[in-house]
């Protein structure tokens, strides 16, 4: 039996999109385009060249270094004559992979973990929260840097695993805080009074009600992750060159700032706009989630 109230109206994507402000619509569209191009990058004609030298029609190779935007290279070329747009699109994959792994691990493991300890309380809760306090006592970037140094191998898979694992504690904290309030609600008491098993209450009552808040948090956390990967790549500690990532593109362009700024401008814009979009859409979803929480 299900006790917590649920909305009778079916979720309509179109309606939700219409209720966004113009800016939020813009941000949302940017995120959708970003995700689609990153996923289907290999299908875009002329983009599958591993050296990122030809974009659409151009096959002249890498003679044009630090070139300005042109018909052949829509955003120009970088110091090695590689097409910036092509590298931006493949760089988006790195950001996307990091976000996907951080959010998935965080929501699944952190969300479940937090819901569990927030509901059962007692010694298990104390032990888990103490561990989390210690992990969160480290400045995040410093902990990340230390782990990356000692893991040695540095490719996208390893990076995703590390970031995924490090995402769990903070999500656990968020989920626990919510589970604490949810487990005091009358529908949980009702389920308990009827002798429902703890595990059933956890899965049917607690988790579904904790999830929206955790998901709303996930978008804001995603913005932090994109910026974090940017910083990491800027320091040369994300995917290894020549593989592109927005942060290492900016770092590469930094040396030529006196000659041309464009190779630095494009990835910076992509990074800033993506972080801004995630924050903006995240704020919008948080407001929706708050309204929903107030309703139940």
């Amino acid at each position, binding site marked *: 039996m299900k006790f917590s109230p649920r909305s009778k109206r079916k979720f309509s994507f179109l309606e939700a999109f219409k209720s966004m402000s113009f800016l939020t619509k813009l941000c949302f569209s940017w995120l959708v385009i970003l995700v689609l191009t990153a996923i289907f990058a290999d299908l875009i004609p002329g983009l599958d060249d591993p050296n990122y030298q030809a974009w659409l029609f151009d096959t002249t190779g890498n003679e044009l270094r630090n070139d300005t935007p042109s018909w052949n290279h829509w955003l120009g070329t970088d110091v090695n004559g590689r097409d910036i747009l092509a590298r931006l699109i493949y760089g988006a994959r790195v950001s996307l992979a990091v976000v996907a792994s951080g959010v998935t691990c965080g929501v699944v493991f952190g969300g479940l973990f937090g819901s569990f300890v927030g509901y059962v309380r007692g010694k298990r809760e104390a032990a888990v929260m103490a561990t989390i*306090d*210690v*992990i969160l*006592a*480290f*400045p*995040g*970037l*410093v*902990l990340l*840097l*230390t*782990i*990356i*140094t*000692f*893991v*040695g*191998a540095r490719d996208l898979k390893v990076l995703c695993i590390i970031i995924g694992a490090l995402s769990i504690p903070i999500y656990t904290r968020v989920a626990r805080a919510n589970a604490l309030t949810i487990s005091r609600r009358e529908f949980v008491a009702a389920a308990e009074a009827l002798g429902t098993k703890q595990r059933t209450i956890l899965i049917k009552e607690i988790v579904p009600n904790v999830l929206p808040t955790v998901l709303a948090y996930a978008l804001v956390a995603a*913005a932090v992750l994109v*910026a974090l990967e*940017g*910083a990491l790549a*800027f*320091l*040369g*500690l994300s995917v290894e060159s020549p593989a592109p990532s927005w942060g290492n593109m*900016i770092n590469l362009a*930094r040396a030529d*700032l*006196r000659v041309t*700024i464009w190779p*630095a401008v494009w990835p*910076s814009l992509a*990074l*800033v706009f993506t*972080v*801004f979009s995630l*924050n*903006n859409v995240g*704020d919008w979803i948080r407001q929706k989630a708050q309204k929903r929480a107030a309703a139940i």
Partner: protein
Amino acid sequence: MLAARLVRLVATLLAVSFLTFFLVNTLPGDPINALIPPDAQQDQEFVAQLREEYGLNDPFLVRYGSWLGDAINGDLGRSVITDQLVTDEIKHRIPVTAELAVVSIGLALLLAIPLGVTAGYRQGTKIDQSISALAQFLLSIPSFIVGLILIYFLSIRLRWLPATGWTRLTESVTGNIKTVIMPAVSLALTEIAVYTRVVRSDMINTLKETYVLSAKSKGLKDRFILFRHALRPSSLTLTTIVGLNIAGLIGGTVVIEQLFALPGLGKRLLDAIFQRDFIMVQGVTVFMACVYVVINTCVDLFYMVIDPRIRRKS
């Protein structure tokens, strides 16, 4: 109660040191690889001798115990690469990082408090919306991009400030200001956004309090009420947020010190990482985490000192 807080502080510090030591010593990748290049590892005898010297053969807990004992006595070991004492390096470099952090927090508060107060006071108006939008925008620019923009305009185009390098305060005050200003502003922008939001939401709540109403009915000027009466409770929240933000700031200084080539602790950590200098990384990481934990304990204690309500409750 003070004693309980101090016990917790010591427990956290121990746990933090243990976790760092655990990470550095058990993650894949033999520390011996960091000590000598692969081709030198053919010499089995030499490798065995090194293992003995660095105590790599002892059980994990024994190694942790002896390292902790040394650490408490102020000895974090010697750099594998340069043979410098880790503690000497920290002492030498912490002034740069500390100054950077203090100046950026100062700048951020100086700008965020008026912005937040105005936004909260004029809640819902165009001014409030613009300030909130500005805060959201500032929150979305990573500090290294702000740094690059500043370098491009102020150093490369206008040639007003040096793009990289550091002049110590003891050498020249104006030189020091010239080198600290761009890195500090880069770090401050994100913080401005965070603090403005906090002050704004605090202000909205405080302005509903009855004592604000009574101050108003006494005929006090709005500006006086805002900054003298309404801002006072916000000082508590702000202190907490500043304390919590130190973590982000420490991470930020690593990136910014690298960008501006400042001889700070963050730059040293990165150099050690690239050199795979595991003793230096271990020492600096423990130090940074401990600073963060200690600062937040101080914030908690400070909270109790200035707010009698919290003292009495617990």
